[in-house]
């Protein structure tokens, strides 16, 4: 009886909206020793969060444990009555959610929520709980530990909230903490700090942990052992170093391969004479709010950004959330007219406002949005969605239209039969392909890709990148590829522009990323990307002054 957690033959079923029963966890067994951190890794839908939540005796609505046992400290948790289970939550096992921003109640102060566990379970007097919370804030390297609890959740940053939610999980002195993708929503530079803070408190208190993530590199920094899941089944279990360096199961290898996408091969071609660039952006200033005198918007999001994109080449735009990279795409597309500056497409100036551009100008620049879920009309069939730009831009109909839709589906490597379905019946990767096909339907020369792989699993995202490369070879497209993920950008772009706080800091060759010549912020950004190396986090040394200068947290 040495293991803290013992899960045996766990099976969980879920009821779908249509009343069908689906097995989402099949025969899963594993142990967690005291003080050990075990990672559950897999793509979305692999059941990793569901398994983690069963350790708290909780299944989300519609899910049910049908078989198996979940023992916490020798006690069968799934057999306990709800009140007994509730009494363990927060005291024996606690939870750090994926999105702390959504998991803090906006109506209450942070401190009240952090110490709520002690109040619910009558652990200690309020004063003592507050002191303990401040202690934890300090341990998690939060700024102003004495007063940060008096604020409301919307008054602190995402990275801080994530650490505050760890404090919330630790206040009841649990034996096991469940981290559910706790850094997925964070920027890389923030992620480093949060991971460090988590790691140090967990090691100090010798607390056991379950770390749920899809990111192998992150998990490699914090976990002792890794469990690889797919479709609710365990594929491989092993020590972190073994999984990372000597993966046995083919699926694990696939995950590792997707982490390092195939390097970009520059397109060889007779590019002898220098051509006029496809897109030139000159000193663009854009933002929201009223445009005052001196043509300056009241809230400036993009400040004097300039770049050139040669025909048939790809430019990556990277930066953290809020740096203005998506806004830049919207400005080029004309959705948000620029307040100042000039956009030249094929040497001709484009009107900043989309409504004043000609239909042909609109056709040549297409945008693909991050979330295919919201970009595709759920009420229309795939054929309708793809037919719309074909009719709008090319005015074709009848047989020709049908044939073009089929052709587009072929181009994005989807079966033609999908044309009769609606977006809700497709997987995330398929939806993103449709999203891309819609841009291709216009016969665009330039496609603005706004974080198009960010919502996808690594393996699926890597396939989309491959598709983009193939399409580029066939159709001589250019991409403006916006992403926060450096490895994806490296996989497809010829040049990379780094943005910070609305300004373009520098433009460089992706192979030279992190090289000596880079700007300090770029260096910080590149260095913060987790590597598939268990010692990366511990050996990473960051200049605190640099971190201070470039953190707007």
């Amino acid at each position, binding site marked *: 009886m040495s293991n803290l957690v013992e899960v045996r033959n766990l099976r969980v079923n879920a009821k779908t909206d249509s009343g069908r029963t689906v097995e989402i966890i099949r025969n899963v067994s594993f142990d967690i020793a005291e003080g050990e951190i075990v990672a559950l890794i897999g793509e979305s839908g692999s059941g990793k969060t569901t398994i983690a939540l069963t350790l708290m005796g909780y299944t989300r609505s519609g899910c049910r444990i049908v078989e198996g046992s979940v023992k916490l400290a020798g006690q069968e948790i799934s057999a306990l009555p709800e009140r007994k289970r*509730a009494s363990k939550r*927060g005291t024996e096992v*606690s*939870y750090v959610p994926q999105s702390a921003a959504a*998991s*803090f109640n906006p109506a*209450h102060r942070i401190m009240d929520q952090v110490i709520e*566990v002690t109040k619910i379970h009558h652990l200690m007097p309020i004063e003592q709980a507050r002191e303990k919370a401040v202690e934890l804030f300090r341990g998690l390297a939060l700024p102003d530990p004495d007063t940060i609890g008096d604020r*409301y959740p919307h008054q602190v940053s995402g990275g801080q909230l994530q650490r505050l939610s760890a404090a919330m999980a630790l206040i009841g002195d649990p034996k096991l903490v469940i981290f559910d993708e706790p850094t997925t929503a964070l920027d890389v530079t923030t992620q480093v700090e949060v991971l460090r803070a988590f790691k140090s408190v967990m090691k100090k208190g010798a607390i056991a942990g379950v770390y749920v993530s899809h990111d192998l590199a992150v998990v490699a920094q914090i976990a002792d052992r890794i469990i690889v899941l797919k479709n609710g089944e365990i594929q491989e279990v092993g020590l972190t170093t073994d999984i990372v360096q000597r993966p046995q199961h083919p699926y694990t290898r696939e995950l590792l391969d997707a982490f390092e996408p195939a390097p970009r091969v520059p397109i060889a071609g007779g590019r002898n004479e220098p051509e006029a660039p496809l897109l030139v952006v000159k000193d663009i200033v854009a933002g929201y709010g009223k445009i005052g005198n001196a043509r300056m918007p009241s809230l400036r999001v993009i400040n004097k950004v300039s770049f050139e994109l040669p025909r048939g080449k790809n430019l990556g735009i990277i930066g953290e959330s809020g740096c203005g990279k998506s806004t830049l795409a919207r400005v080029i597309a004309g959705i948000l007219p620029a307040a100042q500056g000039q956009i030249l497409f094929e040497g001709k100036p484009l009107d900043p406002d989309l409504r004043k551009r000609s239909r042909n100008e609109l056709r040549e620049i297409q945008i693909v949005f991050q979330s295919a879920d919201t970009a595709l009309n759920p009420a229309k069939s795939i054929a309708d969605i793809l037919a719309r730009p074909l009719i709008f831009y090319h005015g074709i109909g009848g047989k020709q239209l049908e044939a073009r839709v089929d052709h587009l589906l072929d181009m994005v490597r989807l079966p033609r039969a999908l044309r009769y379905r609606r977006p809700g019946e497709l997987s995330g990767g398929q939806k993103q392909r449709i999203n891309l096909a819609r841009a291709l339907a216009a016969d665009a020369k330039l496609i603005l890709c706004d974080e198009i792989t960010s919502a996808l699993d690594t393996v699926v995202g890597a396939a989309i990148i491959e598709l983009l490369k193939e399409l580029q070879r066939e159709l001589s497209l250019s991409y403006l590829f916006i992403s926060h993920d450096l490895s994806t950008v490296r996989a497809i772009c010829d040049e990379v522009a780094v943005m910070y706080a609305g300004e373009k800091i520098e433009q460089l060759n992706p192979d030279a990323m992190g090289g000596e010549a880079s700007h300090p912020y770029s260096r910080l950004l590149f260095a913060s990307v987790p590597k598939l190396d268990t010692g990366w986090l511990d050996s990473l040394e960051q200049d605190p002054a640099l971190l201070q200068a470039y953190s707007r947290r």
Partner: protein
Amino acid sequence: MNSLILRLAAKRLVIAFLTLLFVAFTIFFATEMLPGDVAEVLLGQAATPEAVAGLRTAMNLDQPAFLRFIYWLGELFTGDFGVSYVNKLPIADLIGGRLANSLKLAGVTAVISVPIALALGITAAIKRGTLYDRIVSIFTISVISVPEFMVATIAVIVFAVYLGWLPALSMANEVTSIGGLLKAFAMPVITLSFVVSAQMIRMSRAAVLETLNTPYVEMALLKGASRRRMVLRHALPNALGPIVNAVALSLSYLLGGVIIVETIFNYPGIAKLMLDAVSTRDLPLIQSCAMIFCLAYLLLITIADLVAIISNPRLQ
């Protein structure tokens, strides 16, 4: 950040005021467009043209409509509602007693229906999917679908005719004892409560359900909170805005929309006064009643908006 709250509140008040002005404009010119000449109607068929012309001058009817609108508006703001065309009594006096009656009825209905409706809505949300929830839902849907004259008529048949417990008519003016008050109010209040509660039950249930599905309520559950704590402490404060709005909307119905109930029970309220004014073409009375309904509605909606603004922690 409190200046932000003040600014938003001030903005709401200004919008309410502008709406009121717009409604006044609409009411005035809508009644203006009614066919027929007031002076001719008042004097009857036997009137001489001279008499009609004299009356028109006396009533300022020969002046441009817009000017008369300004006069009327100015008088409204100074509290002078004008004189009834029909019985020459000041409208303020006519309305005064009736408004008090209507407010009494609305007040009693609100005091009874709001707590019951909110309690039913919130508990239905907590026990979502149970038999209790279904019973409450079926009840509210059936109440919404049954027209109020039906509810009122059935109430009269059951309580006044068949059981003989309550009088069929509500003579609020003759009430002297508490028992008498209960008797006079019972049936109109029951009927109105049915009508206004249904909306509040549905809206509060939906608002609480929505917040119960948020990650922060799941987080509270994973902190070991009881069902009760999850709802009262975590869900309810965030559902307050929509609930208050639903309550305000329902209550606003109690002043303007009670014509049927007041008529069936012959209750001397303001809605019935307006109905009578329409049948006698008493334009100033119609206009004043309409303005009062609009004012009450705006007042309730603005209060609801202010509560929603103040209860939003992001603005504090």
